[in-house]
């Protein structure tokens, strides 16, 4: 187990290296002069030169990559072109809302989607099953911001149950914090719920046909026991895997959800950075998100043994 964990952790290093190389090379991939593109149309030649120097574009590619990677490993993500603040400081200021949103969405989505998928598999072929599958197709089709606007319109503007937009820090009380995140979490969770529910249903359908389920039934285990103890436990690995893969949806969706609900998180930071072409910030955020994504999936890989003792490494 320990050897496996070590091997799995080591295996993420090349992945992160590719990510870093790619994120770094983005600047060089742009057609034309990246410094001029970042500086914008109204820039003077002096501005362009200043940006070229601050990004290190005047020095050789490999030298620059070495420096950049070395700084990253020490937690230095560079300096924003626009605010002149360290990118790591800007990220630290904005990370709380985004993490809060993602964690609440994750909990909400898993606690809705898994029972949904299980029920659909149990009631296979009935109207309940069809409803779940129909919801899943809808969840994949209706974009995050559409759900967001509809929810905000109905529950905040028309019914006035919840705040329309904004964010309250956790330190100012759990309820105000939570209240502001309910609608964004539901909006962001739509696709994620659809994805998890679909995989849960498919895996459960497969597991429910196994011999040990018939054995459990024969020895008199109740329906609920069969579904949640015998079947779900054996269906856990694909479900947990898709929960990890789906974190990418959460990350991408968070950028949009934060725009819709005016949440001052990393998504807003990204959007602002794009509009200002603040490239060090964009690079920093993408690196951070990718790192988070790789880390989540690493953790899930390591968790497999917990769900399925047959997996031994």
């Amino acid at each position: 187990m320990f050897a496996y964990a070590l091997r799995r952790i080591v295996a993420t290093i090349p992945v992160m290296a590719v990510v870093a190389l790619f994120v770094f090379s983005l600047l060089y991939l742009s057609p034309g002069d990246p410094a001029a593109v970042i500086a914008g149309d109204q820039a003077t030649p002096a501005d362009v030169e200043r940006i070229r120097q601050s990004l290190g574009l005047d020095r050789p590619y490999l030298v620059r990559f070495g420096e950049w990677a070395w700084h990253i490993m020490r937690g230095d993500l560079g300096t924003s072109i626009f605010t002149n603040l360290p990118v790591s400081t800007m990220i630290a200021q904005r990370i709380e809302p985004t993490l809060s949103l993602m964690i609440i969405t994750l909990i909400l989505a898993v606690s809705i989607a898994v029972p949904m998928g299980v029920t659909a598999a149990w009631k296979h072929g009935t109207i309940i099953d069809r409803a779940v599958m129909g919801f899943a197709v809808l969840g994949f089709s209706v974009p995050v911001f559409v759900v967001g606007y509809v929810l905000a319109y109905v529950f905040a503007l028309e019914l006035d149950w919840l705040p329309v937009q904004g964010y309250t820090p956790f330190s100012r009380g759990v309820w105000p914090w939570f209240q502001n995140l309910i609608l964004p979490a539901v909006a962001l969770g739509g696709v994620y719920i659809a994805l998890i529910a679909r995989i849960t249903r498919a895996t459960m359908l497969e597991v429910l046909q196994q011999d040990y389920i018939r054995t459990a039934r024969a020895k008199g285990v109740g329906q609920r026991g069969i579904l949640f103890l015998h079947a779900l436990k054996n269906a856990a690995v694909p479900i947990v895997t898709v929960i990890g893969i789906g974190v990418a949806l959460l990350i991408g969706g968070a950028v949009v959800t934060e725009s819709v609900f005016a949440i001052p998180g990393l998504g807003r930071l990204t959007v602002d950075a794009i509009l200002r072409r603040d490239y060090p910030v964009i690079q920093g955020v993408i690196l951070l998100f990718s790192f988070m994504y790789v880390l989540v999936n690493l953790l899930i890989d390591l968790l497999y043994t917990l769900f399925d003792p047959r997996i031994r490494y």
Partner: protein
Amino acid sequence: MSTSILPGRLTAADVAAAAPQPDVMPPVRARRGFAGFMRRNPTIVFGGGLLLLILLVAVFAPLLWTTDPTALAPARRTREPSAMYWFGTDMLGRDVYSRVLYGARVSLIVGFSVAFFSSVIGLTIGLVSGFVRWADAIIMRIMDGLMSIPSILLAIALMALTRGSVGNVILAITIAEIPRVSRLVRGVVLSLREQPYVDAAVASGTSTPRIILRHILPNTLAPITVQATYICASAMIAESILSFIGAGTPPIIPSWGNIMAEGRALWQVKPYIVFFPAIFLSLTVLAVNLLGDGLRDALDPRMAKRV
């Protein structure tokens, strides 16, 4: 019944009385024509029909009682939907109905182009990866790396470096989608290589390019087609997200994401500016997704009614 317990002595009556065996293969109902096709593949017909309708709307937008979607008219800005302005007007007085109809063009062009280009490029990379051992390790490490950047972020990063245009949006989303197609094709190729008929082809001295062309490629087309429809759907969503956050098509082009981005400032008082493009976008993506589900069920019967 007593006689039938002995093996080999089944009577006709026993056979008739026996419980019907579960069919391994579903009974074949060879209905012909459109009615038969519709009965067998309702999702393909419904999704495809809806998509065709939207496609026709996009193509014939100028004939469908629209006006110039970019014509400014400050005198009649933010009008509520009415008989005159079906979907109302936006804050610059542009007709939202016309803009939404023309917006269908952008979404469909982006969706279809990304689906086509990422499939072709992904197919090539996947075939190389599945057949050339030394390249496989390198290609797959690169794809692993790219796949760990959430695709919409990857597209955002690419767009941040170029000027907004429909071509650049297509390019950015295509690059973001390629790793997934390559992985899919590689997986299919690796499993096909183990098939007996490929062994037979190798044994009879068929050259590798010919094996790829005759035996491997045709078998990758079904999964690729299904994947392409899903990519088309996610590309349309990605385009609207990019435009919505200001990193997509230039604001002058009426794309659904742009219309929503412009309506955002006013959405609490004039929600219709956001809602009409939202409805069209959702319906279009739904149509493509249904088509994809239907194709998957039709092309891969083992998966049908499962996932």
